[in-house]
């Protein structure tokens, strides 16, 4: 995915501008930024839902309207109506719409692919269950399965662990790590702590993009993007993503 000199927004007003970004195939990339910083605007441009005001976006060498067929998109599951009468199988089958086209029915191979995707996210036996009655973590898995069933080259997730508890969160990241062996993972979140311990590369977005090509968030990046001093606290060595810094022995920096 390659984004250059991008400006985008609504009604000719740019929410984000001068965004340059390159994500290589196979990367595990995290995009963080405060709410209102333009994360969802950037997502919409990448998915071809709104046209850029300036600059270009290429997804696997094609403009978003075409290139998005390589993207498996996982929206925030909390947006869905829990009373909508729909089964896990039916939701996952939606991911085959692109393969199936306007033809009114899904076929055998679609159902087979759906069962495989449900199995890949560890939801075997849940095919006929009502999506509205599942827990947050289970719903998230169903939406990941829906993204996987179209055999994408890149998985794009919007706040995948918003409102799930820490244990479920960990299991979802474990799943993403496994999926990363076969595909690019792009993760968008406002939760710095979450992203830092899992991704390989990271960028901060707040109207402009700040990136260095390491899995490290520097205080400068954060302060520039959040426009205010930010506390960075790293919990223990294994999860450390902060650059070595002066007060390293205390595990925190200001």
């Amino acid at each position, binding site marked *: 995915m390659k984004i250059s000199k991008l400006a985008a927004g609504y009604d000719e007003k740019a929410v984000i501008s001068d965004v340059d970004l390159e994500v290589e195939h196979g990367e595990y990339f995290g995009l963080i930024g405060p709410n209102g910083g333009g994360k969802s605007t950037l997502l919409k441009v990448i*998915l*071809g*839902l709104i046209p850029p005001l300036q600059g270009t976006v290429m997804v696997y060498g094609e403009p978003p309207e075409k290139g*998005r*067929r390589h*993207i498996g*998109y996982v*929206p925030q599951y909390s947006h*869905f*109506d829990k*009373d*909508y*009468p*729909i*089964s896990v199988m*039916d*939701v996952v089958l*939606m*991911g085959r*719409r*692109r393969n*199936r*086209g*306007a033809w*009114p*029915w*899904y076929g055998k191979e679609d159902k087979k692919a759906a069962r495989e995707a449900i199995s890949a996210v560890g939801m075997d036996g849940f095919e*006929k269950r*009502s999506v509205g009655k599942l827990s947050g973590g289970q719903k998230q898995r169903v939406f990941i399965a*829906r993204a996987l069933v*179209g055999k994408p080259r890149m998985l794009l997730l919007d706040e995948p662990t918003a409102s799930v508890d820490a244990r479920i969160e960990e299991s979802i990241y474990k799943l993403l790590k496994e999926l990363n062996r076969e595909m690019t993972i792009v993760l968008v979140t406002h939760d710095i702590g979450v992203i830092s311990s899992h991704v390989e590369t990271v960028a901060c977005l707040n109207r402009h993009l700040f990136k260095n090509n390491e899995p490290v968030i520097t205080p400068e990046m954060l302060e520039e993007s959040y426009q205010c001093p930010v506390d960075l606290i790293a919990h223990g060595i294994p999860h450390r993503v902060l650059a070595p810094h002066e007060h390293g022995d205390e595990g925190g920096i200001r």
Partner: protein
Amino acid sequence: MTFHLMDYLTAPFFQQMLVAGILASLACGIIGSLVVVKRSVFIAGGISHTTFGGIGFAYWLQTIGLDWFDPLFGAILFAVGAALIMSVRSLRDRFREDSTIGMLWVLGMAAGIIFLHFVDPSVRPLSAEAILFGDILLVSTTDIMIILGLVAIIYIFGLVFFKDLKMLTFDEEFARISGVNTSFLNTLLMVLIALTVVILIKVVGVVLIIAMLTIPAATANIYTRNLWSMMLLASIIGVVLTTAGILFSSMTDLPPGAVIVMTMGSIFLLSLLGKAIYSKVHSFRESNS
């Protein structure tokens, strides 16, 4: 006064009333379910009230000599027109959606009142009240033919686009990135809602249309786990309760539209109550096991 069921069942006016009610319920099973899951009840309300203007317009045309212009044609014209106006993307972006709907709603009603004012009483067999609250007693054979055609259109499009309509109503953004032409499909759904509304005018009248569209579907939603079975159950509930309502209104001499709506409302409330009791008992058992 005694009530003789067989006399009613064999009377042509009663049979036509039943046929219209059943056809309307079948349309409502499909379109009502989509309206409920997409939360478009207010849109359906707006479309249904504009048809009052269309009916007034048709009677006015009859007054000035266009005898063939059936009131249902006027209703179709205004309902589909309102549906198309509400589908215009730029209009929805420019003004608040609910304000646009509200305006069409009242403008349609006002136009109807003005048109009816100029109508020659001899061409207008119906009072404004009959248009607003239903005149199922006066369903003609022509009406049945028009309604049958509309139901056929609704079923054909509903079935052909079922898979995409499910996607659209569940997750419009995902539908769009998956290649569904969402603006076309949204417009199509609006037009199908408009046609369903036209069918319902004859059965329950302009004001009570929303009840036929939403109550059977909302009741079916309580018991079903996928959209397909929701549509099926909503159709069955609609057919049974409409028939029951028509029979009851004939027995009691109460207006059929209002009786049908009250019957549906009672069943919905009973279903909610039943569900609440069931889940209470269920959780009580689980906590004791």
